[in-house]
């Protein structure tokens, strides 16, 4: 017999017992015979076989599960392209004030002027920071912002009768949502190669442009972690060809308050407020993908958005904006996220915006310089890092067999979340590292030490590295098995149709 290692956390279903209840959560009004008589024909026969657990079991189970996560609040999380910076706790508290959290979305505008004013100011603030003419806050994440943006570009061309523009240009390094969005918007995608220096291959771009070009989708700094130096030329070329420029704002943290996409020549953009404006990522979402446009695209903005009228603020709908691409969701977007972004923006203030870019850039360049010193290879050695940078383990991989995945898993054992790996797809065995401005130097130094230790391990004991992680609740997981067996839900035992009475 040995002292048992603390077991994994069972499924909530496995904690249940038929008839167990969190009774304080049941409605006050007891069920009476005949309550559902009018629905008889439509009723289900059984009670759904959800977990039957007590309130303590629920609290304990999910509290324990939470501890099985890495997060910004517990770990350094340099996940490239994701801007995992500190999410101010004040934003969480204030967005949950009853005066916001309990508003019904279809209550009349007159009854929610405090909210509408706040959203209106956020629209204005984002327009100012990005150099765009107008903003709509309705998209619910970056990808929906991309959809809205590309749909506006489509609407713009169509409104001008310019209907032959069927192609969207996307650099090969682009985030997957860019081509996926272009396709959802009915476009053909043409990939534009990246030059050896990390900038767009201008010759290839020029060759690709034509009367069929609807737009180019770019992010700057690019997903390679470098600033596209030719951006003004690109803008000129695309505009000359009659195309528009779409800015994927996922990387705005690098240039916040220092360079404005509008000034670079972009016509449309989305922001990832859940990155640059520090709303929490919530283990997958929610985000908010506000879109901004240049003046000529203003008529096409998605609805609703807030307008200021004589009687106060109100939501503009399809009636007000006949050329709008329309509604993207049931109500007005991820309001609670927008409030958090507003709060963050007000905490930073005008002087804080530029500091975000400054220190995000300082941190990234510091890491890059020090990691190079200890033997890592940048993907673009002659370039300045922006808020993030790309390493490639390609040489090490050839020499030892160690992969980017091995480094990712190895870092976890040091209590550091892995960087983004294998993205962008064109750089082999790459790590995209984004420390963000809210990390301190000791933390960065700890990361460098960990990376150095893993490098040594790759060279001395690859098998050990390949077995990482060792310190986490589970060891390396079998993803092939997951895809093969497709075990996607707990299969409950048949439900017990009898229910406990109102004791």
């Amino acid at each position, binding site marked *: 017999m040995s002292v048992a290692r603390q077991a994994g956390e069972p499924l909530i279903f496995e904690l249940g017992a038929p008839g167990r209840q969190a009774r304080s959560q049941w409605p006050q009004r007891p069920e009476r015979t005949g309550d559902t008589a009018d629905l008889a024909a439509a009723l289900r026969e059984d009670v759904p076989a959800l977990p039957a657990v007590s309130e303590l079991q629920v609290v304990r189970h999910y509290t324990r599960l939470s501890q099985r996560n890495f*997060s910004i609040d517990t770990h350094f999380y340099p996940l490239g392209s994701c801007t995992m910076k500190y999410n101010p706790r004040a934003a969480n508290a204030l967005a949950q004030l009853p005066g916001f959290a309990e508003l019904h979305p279809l209550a009349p505008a007159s009854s929610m002027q405090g909210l509408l004013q706040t959203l209106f100011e956020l629209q204005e603030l984002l327009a100012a920071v990005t150099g765009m003419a107008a903003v709509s806050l309705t998209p619910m994440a970056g990808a929906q912002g991309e959809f809205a943006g590309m749909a506006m570009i489509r609407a713009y061309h169509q409104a001008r009768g310019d209907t032959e523009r069927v192609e969207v240009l996307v650099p090969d390094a682009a985030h997957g949502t860019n081509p996926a969005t272009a396709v959802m918007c009915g476009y053909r995608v043409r990939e534009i190669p990246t030059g050896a220096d990390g900038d767009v291959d201008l010759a290839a771009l020029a060759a690709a442009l034509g009367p069929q070009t609807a737009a180019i989708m770019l992010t700057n700094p690019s997903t390679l972690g470098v600033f596209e130096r030719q951006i003004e030329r690109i803008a000129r070329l695309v505009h000359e060809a009659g195309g528009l420029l779409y800015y994927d704002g996922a990387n705005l943290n690098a240039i916040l308050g220092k360079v404005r996409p509008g000034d670079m020549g972009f016509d449309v953009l989305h922001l990832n407020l859940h990155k640059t404006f520090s709303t929490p990522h919530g283990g997958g979402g929610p985000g908010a993908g506000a879109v901004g446009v240049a003046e000529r695209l203003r008529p096409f903005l998605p609805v609703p958005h807030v307008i200021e009228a004589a009687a106060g603020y109100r939501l503009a709908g399809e009636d007000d904006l006949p050329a709008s691409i329309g509604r993207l969701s049931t109500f007005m977007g991820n309001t609670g996220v927008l409030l958090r972004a507003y709060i963050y923006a007000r905490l930073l203030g005008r002087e804080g915006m530029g500091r975000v870019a400054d220190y995000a850039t300082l941190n990234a360049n510091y890491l890059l310089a020090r990691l190079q010193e200890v033997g890592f290879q940048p993907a673009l050695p002659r370039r300045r890092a922006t808020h993030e940078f790309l390493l490639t383990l390609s040489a090490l991989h050839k020499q030892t067999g160690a992969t980017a995945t091995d480094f990712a898993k190895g870092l976890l054992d040091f209590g550091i979340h892995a960087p983004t790996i294998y993205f962008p797809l064109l750089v082999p065995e790459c790590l995209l590292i984004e420390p963000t401005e809210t990390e301190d130097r000791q933390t960065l130094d700890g990361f460098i030490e960990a990376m150095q230790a893993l490098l040594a391990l790759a060279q001395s004991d690859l098998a050990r590295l390949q077995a990482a992680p060792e310190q986490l609740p*589970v060891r390396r997981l079998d993803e092939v098995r997951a895809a093969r067996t497709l075990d996607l839900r707990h299969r409950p035992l048949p439900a017990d149709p009898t229910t406990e009475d109102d004791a």
Partner: protein
Amino acid sequence: MPFIPHTEADTAAMLAAIGVDSIEALFDEVPATLRAPPLDAVPPGLNEAGVTRLLRARAGRNELPVCFAGAGAYDHHVPAAVWQIATRGEFYSAYTPYQAEASQGTLQVIYEFQSMLTTLLDMEVANASLYDGASALAEAVLMAVRLARRPGCVLLPRSLHPHYRQAVRTLTAPQQIELVEVDYDRQTGQVDLAALAALDATPIAALVVPQPNVFGVIEPVDALVDWAQERQALTIAAVNPIAMALLQPPGRWGSGPGADIVVGEGQPLGVPLAAGGPYFGFMAARQAHVRQMPGRIVGRTRDLEGRVGYTLTLQPREQHIRRGRATSNICTNQGLMVTAATIYLALMGGEGLRRVAVASHARLRELLDLLAPEGVRPRFTGPHFHEAALALPQPAAMVRDGMLAAGVLGGVVLDAWYPELGPTLLACTTEQREAEDLARYRTALREALA
């Protein structure tokens, strides 16, 4: 400097390590012409106390009447445990669980959510959320078109929430999918079966079936699903998840194998009204359709040592792998809301959820009983679930504003969406509406009508 930990010494040492002499120098690749002007339009920074003061004042300028509005967002009780746990930093500030070993908490929650949702709907597979109810329906329409055995149009009943129809239109428009609206029966408030019969010759890819519909009316789902299946069309159910604890779940609709795809708004499951979001869209489907399903999916697997663990799976459906050929462009979803909903569903259990549905419904019947003597009755004869269109003798917006002055949000003005109905207020009750609230509704209505 708010949120920036660098001391002057740190900055100096870091610049030295990089080999530049100022932060400014790190921007040397940015053309000088592009430097932004001062951000005068952005106000100076506030401290936390200042922002707190400001936001509390703003929140105070929003009214909180007793809520009888529904129409897609419902004022159910949210147990205190739900958000105290969901906002724990480990859930709140984590990213999408790309590194499975470091994200077992979130991954297991999603697996449990998929299990609960499929159980509730009697479906086989579910994803980890889409943005909201309306956009989830749009994704379902796109999915159905990909799955359709033969090309054809997609039927959207007019009894489906107009915002859902609008969002479906926006989100599918670029792909030239033909959306055909099907009228509703002016008497019952249900899909007009005659209008449907008129489409007998049209090739149909899919039929959307709302349950309950925007009028709160229960649709004849068996007949609708059978009709679609006879025509080789897929059926997409758009359901209220609380109602599913009480009503036949879509997996059992019709005489065949039930609905193909189910979507809906997850808000009623523990998510605050919050002026419309963040909520979450859910989607479930038959197993056979899983490879066309958008969104993240979690699977159970094993680790090196044989221990159970959870991971994202079927990723080749997604944009980060398949790019232009992905099932959707969705990346960030509404994860934290799913965490909340999972905790909510665990707290309620099947029986608790059923009681919420029953109590919400019973309150509507009590309200209607109270209002009948006032001469205010439901506009439709079909059976209702916790929401009803009330025919009014005066313009609905005026009545609503009058009631609001008495602290009661009496409902949503339905004739703004359906002018043919004449003055109508869509009123909803949840289990939170106590007898005294109903009495207050009556008084406020009476006064507004006087």
